[in-house]
């Protein structure tokens, strides 16, 4: 069989599955990015304003999750989450639920790592805002929430967006590791295709090209997003 049929949309073609894999890769990366952002904001808040025990906890979380291989974290959740859910179900007397879906395991594990990096970024971003900005807001009677929404958020966005773009690239590439859990995202699909057709170069090459498309497109998007959030800073 020649390469074109293998990559086509015909009955022997892998194109539909590969494209589906692409979408799944994007979805799992986006989900882990979102998890990472929510948890990252909380962690940054804990480091900046939390009570001492919370500050310590957040610090340790960051050191561990940034120092341990992502693959190990994925393995922890992949093997650990089912037994955790099972023991939870036992204690509360629920019916034993099935295995957690691989999508959840994958996005959660990459998200937990992503949160550690994003927390550092947010912490730095808030630190980069001059103190006078907060004082001017407080002197006019702004509450904490309003101050965060109107003064902190728009300015943090500018400092943070390029760094978040980097984290997103890492998420995208880390999502390939989720292949070990059997989720048929792009990496897994190309591995299966390579194995069953015995054309590894072809399929890994195509997967590489698709990853390049994804990373290039998203870095362009972040570039323009960064330019927009930065519009007030150009002399």
């Amino acid at each position: 069989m020649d390469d074109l049929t293998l990559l086509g949309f015909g009955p022997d073609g892998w194109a539909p599955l590969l494209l589906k894999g692409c979408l799944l890769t994007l979805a799992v990366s986006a989900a882990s990015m979102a998890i990472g952002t929510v948890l990252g904001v909380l962690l940054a808040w804990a480091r900046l304003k939390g009570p001492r025990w919370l500050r310590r906890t957040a610090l340790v979380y960051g050191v561990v999750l940034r120092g341990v291989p992502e693959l190990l974290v994925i393995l922890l959740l992949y093997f650990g989450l089912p037994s955790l859910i099972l023991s939870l179900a036992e204690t509360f007397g629920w019916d034993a639920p099935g295995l957690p879906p691989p999508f959840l395991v994958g996005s959660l594990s990459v998200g937990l790592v992503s949160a550690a990096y994003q927390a550092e970024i947010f912490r730095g971003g808030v630190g980069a805002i001059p103190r006078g900005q907060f004082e001017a807001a407080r002197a006019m009677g702004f509450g904490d929430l309003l101050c965060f929404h109107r003064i902190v958020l728009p300015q943090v966005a500018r400092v943070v967006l390029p760094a978040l773009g980097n984290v997103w690239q890492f998420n995208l590439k880390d999502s390939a590791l989720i292949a070990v859990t059997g989720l048929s995202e792009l990496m897994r699909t190309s591995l299966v295709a390579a194995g069953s057709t015995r054309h590894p170069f072809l399929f890994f090459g195509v997967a590489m090209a698709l990853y390049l498309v994804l990373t290039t497109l998203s870095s362009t998007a972040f570039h323009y997003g960064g330019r927009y959030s930065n519009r007030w800073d150009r002399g």
Partner: protein
Amino acid sequence: MTPPSPTVLTATNIRKSFGDREVLAGVSLEAREGEVISILGGSGSGKSTFLRCLNLLEVPDEGQIAIGDVQAPLARDRHGRLVVSDGRVAARLRTQTAMVFQGFNLWPHLTVLQNVMEAPLRVHRRDRDEVLATARTLLERVGMAGFHAAYPKRLSGGQQQRVAIARALATNPKLVLFDEPTSALDPERVREVLALMRSLAEEGRTMIVVTHEMAFARDVSSRVVHLMNGRVESSGPPAHMFGPDASPAFRAFLSPAAL
């Protein structure tokens, strides 16, 4: 004699220390409507700290503050330190005042117009059209009518400070606090900002101004307060303070300024 105008600010026995250093050793001040009070003093005399205590940007260690009919919500915590006990009341106290900073502190991500409209829209929740009209008038008033859409970074220091003054006036505060508003400007720009402040005084705004501009204190203010070592060393109307009967300490403070 006309009956005395109502009191806008009462600050009693304000004390504040940073570590071992006592910056304010019991300062009291009362301001009536329409008064312009200049606070003078050498560096480290505590004048900026005092001003920042008035709107609770610094929490004093001791003392009471009332602005309009709002009493500053200060209470002791379990260690006996004075803390802000109710953030909402503190915010309400601040809405009665406005502050103009030495470093302008305009919000860089908002345009000139948005900077002026932000507090009346979001904090006071006033009607948008009304706020817009006020903002336009104010910007014209400070001579920045042509800069609505500009971001602060493009403006000179003097222009930024004039926008900051418009921002301060936009909520129509009972009391405007000026924290060395001309110290970060070059001499050219100082004049335009001082002229603006003078016209505000003439229009009857209640202002407390921490400044190094002796001419402003002498010609514009209704009262001059001299702070030294965290206390009010002397105070009085400018005619007295800049006259022959002024306290020796204040005269000594003035002398290098080549009057």
